[in-house]
């Protein structure tokens, strides 16, 4: 049993950086990762932008030290890269020294390869290379990471659409608090695929000019990809090994909007409940929150209901907030973990990252996001939101220690 859960390592690969250092530099220099589609052939190339990770599968594979064909999905490659960086950053030399688990998250798993399999399979059910579909299910990338990092004591995978990896962080924290494990690597990974690109396109929520979160003239989200992992450790390990603590997981909450399969309720009920639960668990007052990293996808529906929920919780004193999806795009199952890492970076570097592509405040809201980099900020508590299909709403509070 551990009352407190600490973050002792972080790792990331996303559209604006292949590691934590590069990601931070891009955030500080307002460098967006949104650009033209290069990863796969699609009729949307040149029309809809994406926030791709700037590494090919081959480059990822080489960097991870795999030679020859290993049949990895892009999702798994991204996951292994970010998880390895997290474990290294936590200075873990022997993963077996403490009871360690892995809780990962993804929305489409190995779909990047399944969709290739399927085009052959549909023509002839005897065709299509099985190695392209055998890694389809969501647990594949998790077990690949576990094997790669020799994590054995517990593994599982969460898939709750766009809130998946914040939920992984929550479940990992629960496992430590319950005394099931002493250390849990938590996070998520998702590669961008034609499946998701076309799926979101049918909903007509992809902004052809790149996303404009919290802006009156926002026209939808920009899909991204990547992976991010955080090392969570118990009080015991931190005390015994005198570990460097990056932040503490001080509160979290998950609630269901129970309004519609994809749309958020106009009053943001689920979002409100998730934030309220997280604040309650942390024992803080709303006024103690110094920065909110919003879900802020740039869709008409999300940003409005999230904004309304923030105004309901914080009244006239909504803390500085921004969405960093103008940098990273919306990396679905990895988004929550990417933003948790960005939140840790905000605490460590005492900065608030700006909300890119904002010009006009939303007419329904009194609040507006931070649009210029703020430095030398005293950031003790960051609230990070992640909301998904199925009414799945999550919020987590990370605190300076």
């Amino acid at each position, binding site marked *: 049993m551990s009352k407190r859960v600490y973050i002792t390592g972080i790792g990331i690969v996303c559209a604006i950086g292949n590691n934590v250092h590069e990601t931070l530099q891009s955030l500080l220099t307002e460098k967006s990762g949104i650009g033209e589609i290069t990863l796969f052939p699609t009729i949307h190339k040149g029309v809809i932008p994406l926030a791709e990770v700037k590494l090919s599968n081959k480059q990822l594979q080489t960097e991870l030290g795999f030679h020859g064909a290993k049949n990895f999905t892009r999702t798994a490659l991204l996951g292994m890269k970010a998880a390895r960086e997290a474990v290294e950053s936590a200075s873990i030399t022997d993963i077996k020294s403490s009871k360690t688990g892995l809780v990962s998250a993804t929305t489409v798993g190995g779909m990047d390869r399944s969709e290739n399999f399927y085009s052959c399979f549909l023509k002839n059910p005897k065709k299509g290379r*099985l190695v392209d579909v055998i890694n389809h299910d969501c647990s594949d990338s998790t077990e690949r990471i576990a094997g790669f990092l020799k994590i054995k004591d517990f593994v599982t995978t969460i898939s709750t659409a766009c809130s998946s990896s914040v939920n992984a962080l929550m479940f990992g924290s629960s496992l430590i608090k319950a005394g099931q494990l002493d250390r849990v690597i938590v996070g998520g990974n998702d590669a961008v695929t034609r*499946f998701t690109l*076309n799926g979101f396109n049918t909903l007509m929520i992809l902004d052809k000019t790149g996303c404009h979160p919290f802006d009156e003239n926002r026209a939808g989200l920009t899909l991204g990809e990547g992976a991010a992992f955080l090392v969570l450790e118990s009080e015991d390990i931190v005390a015994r090994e005198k570990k460097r603590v990056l932040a503490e997981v001080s509160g979290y909450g998950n609630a*269901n909007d129970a309004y519609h399969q994809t749309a958020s309720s106009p009053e943001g009920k689920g979002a409100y409940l998730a934030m309220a639960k997280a604040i309650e668990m942390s024992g803080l007052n709303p006024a103690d929150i110094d920065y909110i990293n919003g879900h802020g996808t740039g869709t008409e529906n999300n940003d409005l209901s999230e904004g309304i929920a923030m105004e309901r919780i914080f009244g006239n004193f909504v803390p500085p907030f921004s969405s960093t999806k103008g940098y990273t795009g919306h990396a679905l199952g990895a988004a929550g973990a990417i933003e948790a890492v960005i939140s840790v970076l905000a605490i460590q570097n005492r900065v608030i990252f700006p909300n890119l592509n904002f010009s006009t405040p939303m007419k329904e809201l009194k609040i507006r996001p931070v649009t210029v980099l703020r430095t030398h900020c005293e950031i003790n508590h960051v609230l990070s939101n992640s909301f998904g*299909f199925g*009414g799945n709403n999550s919020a987590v509070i990370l605190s300076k220690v």
Partner: protein
Amino acid sequence: MNNIQIYINGLGNVSPQKTIDAKHFLDEPLSYETNRLKSIDPGYKEFIPVELIRRMGRIIKMSVTASKICLEDAGRVHTDGTLLPPEAIITGTGLGCLEDTEKFLASMINNKEEFLTPTSFIQSTHNTVAGQIALLLKCHGYNFTFVHRGFSFESALLDALIQLRMGEFSNLLVGGSDEITSNSFAIMDRMGHWKQKPIQSLTLLYDSQRGTIAGEGASFFFLQNVKNERTRAEIKGLSTLLHPSSISEITEKCLEFLTSNSLTPGDIGLVIPGLNGDPRFDRVYHDFIADIFPRTPIACFKHLCGEYHTATAFALWMATMILNKQSVPLVIRWKSEVSFPLNNILIYNHYRNMEHSFILVARA
């Protein structure tokens, strides 16, 4: 934390057997000549608004129905007949909403990314099941979905036990579900998962061909931290083991799990292994049983529901019913006579020798 007892106070099970009415307990087992078992349509119209049925994939229909039966079984019914939502919903699924995923994938490929409609994409996400249950019950609580092959239901159950024991909730709904489609059956067939010829499903465990039979189902449980007149059994806990390298690693893990529950193998009155008729994988169960449960009575379940990632949810339904009724239906008996009162049942399962799990259930 472990001294808080958790009870199974309601259950609902949609499967290839007649399991929706808890008054009957496998007294009329069905045998099919097939290598792919399908769940029986329980008459969805009784449970789901007709306008929604049309749009829902089978896994959603099975799960919504099983969860409603479960809540009714737990007595969670208002005087006006509506259901009282649980405080949380936690589900596990290996492959999620396959039918919708395939539908969207096929239309994307066939129509070359043009003229697509969103419904099947929207419903393809793995948490559609838990989301739809929440939507229909107006449940605003915690809503989680685990998707990890043979750990999918186990992870959901572990989360449920942790949340209840830590006092986050006093009750919740937990379940496991999977659907098999013609395409997923065909793909796994090419991977060598299934028997090459149809067999009488009830004879599965005696069949010597390679492969098993595909299955599906949705089994839901209402868990509470109090015992009441609806209580059917007590759920003690579970343990998981990834990719063990030897039988002794499995037996060690099992003994460690029993010890943590202050039990020894001699305290287990019945073991339910996940034998699935595939000699390549059943060997593990036989060695395990010979190692620590050589004289313990054994009952089996996959000849009734087939093999799928969340089949242990069916096994938990069966174990709960056995403990509640204090009887073991003929169709599941495999070895030795059970002596009553029967106090503890151990479920041991592995999915293709990758994800191994133990679930312990006790008489309440």
